[in-house]
């Protein structure tokens, strides 16, 4: 039982990471209908910004965290501005957007390898490393922070998207871009806002996952992909779906590793993905769309 609770907690922690990143995929897919393969890179960029701010003693950790989130948001916004928008305005096919986003992720990853460092960096100790014992579970403080930050960010995002007018524009653009424009919504601005928000969420995940494991150039590729699987499992385009998918994959992974075999841990997300897509191609909470004939 104790072990079960411990795994449940671990799953929750790692699931928070997936959920935070997955929601970015889902938001961007909502407004632009394409998979932003560069979304994972934002996570890496965020982790590095925080790492260097702390490593070089530029900023205390909480400020570094905040700086990382806002700069990554801006970075995400810039990728849209300079890589995707020109293509969109030319009316390029969606496949070109997808390929371009792969190019962006290559550029980010390779630039970090070449200009920064190809090595794995442990994150400097900013939190006590001794685990906290709670109800028999041993919880590293970073996990506590992860779950807390995850919950706060996810709730804020949901509130923003569902309850504020600016947030509603994201939904409106996702549902019908032309109709949104006819309401006086500046759709380009809404798309930028979406990328900014997606960037903030991803970088929060990036910093925390960097603290939990290590910071390296491939961080985004690895977690980004599984988070994408989470977004699809939950139903891409659906914000609660992204959260559900994230936690689900986090749980399955930790329980799979604990009770079945840790060797297949990284494959679990994709096995789940394949099964969900076969059973319900639009994902668990997604709405099926049929092309209009």
């Amino acid at each position, binding site marked *: 039982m104790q072990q079960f609770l411990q795994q449940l907690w671990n799953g929750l922690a790692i699931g928070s990471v997936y959920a935070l990143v997955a929601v970015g995929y889902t938001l961007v897919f909502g407004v632009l209908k394409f998979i932003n393969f560069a979304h994972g890179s934002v996570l890496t960029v965020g982790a590095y910004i925080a790492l260097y701010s702390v490593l070089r003693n530029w900023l205390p950790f909480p400020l570094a965290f905040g700086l990382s989130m806002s700069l990554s948001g801006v970075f995400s916004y810039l990728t849209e501005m300079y890589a995707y928008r020109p293509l969109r305005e030319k009316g390029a096919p969606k*496949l070109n957007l997808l*390929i371009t986003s792969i190019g962006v992720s290559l550029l980010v990853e390779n630039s970090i390898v070449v200009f920064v460092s190809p090595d794995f960096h442990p994150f400097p100790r900013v939190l006590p490393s001794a685990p906290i014992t709670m109800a028999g579970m041993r919880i590293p403080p970073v996990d506590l922070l992860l779950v807390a930050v995850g919950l706060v960010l996810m709730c804020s995002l949901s509130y923003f998207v569902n309850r504020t007018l600016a947030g509603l524009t994201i939904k409106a653009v996702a549902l019908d871009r032309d109709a949104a424009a006819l309401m006086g919504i500046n759709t380009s601005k809404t798309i930028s806002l979406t990328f900014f928000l997606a960037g903030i969420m991803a970088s929060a995940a990036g910093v925390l996952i960097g603290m939990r494991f290590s910071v390296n150039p491939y961080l985004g590729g690895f977690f980004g992909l599984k988070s994408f699987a989470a977004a699809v499992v939950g139903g891409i385009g659906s914000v609660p779906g992204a959260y559900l998918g994230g936690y689900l994959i986090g749980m399955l992974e930790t329980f799979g590793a604990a009770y079945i075999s840790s060797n297949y841990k990284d494959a679990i997300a*994709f096995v789940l993905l394949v099964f969900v897509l076969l059973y319900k191609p639009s994902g668990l909470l997604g709405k099926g769309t049929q092309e209009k004939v």
Partner: protein
Amino acid sequence: MMTKTNGFVRRIIVFALEVAAVWVIGSLLREVLPAYPVGIMTIFCINAVLALSWNLISGFTGQFSLGHAGFMVVGAYTSALLMMKAKWPFLPSFITAGLLSALVGFLVGFPSLRLVGDYLSVVTLGFQYIITAILNNTTKLTGGGLGLPGVPYVTSLPVAAVTLTITLWILSNLVNSKQGRCFVAVKEDEIAAQSVGIDTTYYKVVAFMISSFFAGLGGAMIGHYMMYLHPDVFNYAKTIESVSMVILGGLGSLTGSLLGAMCITLLPEVFRNLATFLGGMGMLGPANFLRRGWMVFYATGFLVLMLTRPQGLLGRRELTWPGFKKWIGRVVVRKEARP
């Protein structure tokens, strides 16, 4: 009917002569040239097979697959293990490697090709991760994460060049057939394709299987060239390598894939030689940068290409002899026209 048969026989004979010529030239080059350029040419041939096979599913049929490395790895381990453990000769191992990849292609493709567009890329990518996980954990059979040393060396330049020639011949025959036209129709507009009776699922699965077959052959060649296998050789980056070749050359152009494979194969070599040269001149800093700098150059080039010429160098056109002659003709005429 008689003349038709003759035409067929003649084409087969011409093709056999071509293959023989490629073999002879390849063998000669291997004898005459130093190991370094021979190696690059061999790698080019392997890369070209991989690019051509990815082009069939993604360039012609429009199904963006990101699991190409997954099919390579199936072929690589199958051929290597058949030769090492079952003591099969090369050719049957090689063909079996392709067939098994095609079978895996069917198993992955049949369910996932019902998904639309972007989802396919994710499922195929996921498949590649699953297969890597499986290989990493079957230590007894495949060496797992320790790798598989002692794979027999077979992929000499003539072998790779002949494989490329056959691949190119079969694929160009295929795309210039009813089936090839149906592949393109699926890419153009699935609903319209169905409306004229094209079974889009069937053609997608067929294209996927053929693509996987040749990816398997390419993977097998890699194993028999490096004489060592490791699951991580066939990662996402390996897939992206083939993707970049095709995109550079042009989605839906076979000769474009050859061109793209050539450029991408040469790119790191150019940088490496430049670095060695600079190192020799005593400029160690820039030399060290260049050694890794090609990666940034490669990524930047990839992006610039997508933003400025997304259809690639050739678009959907093919390089052909008559076309080449026409082009030469135009260039010459233009020069002569000058005062």
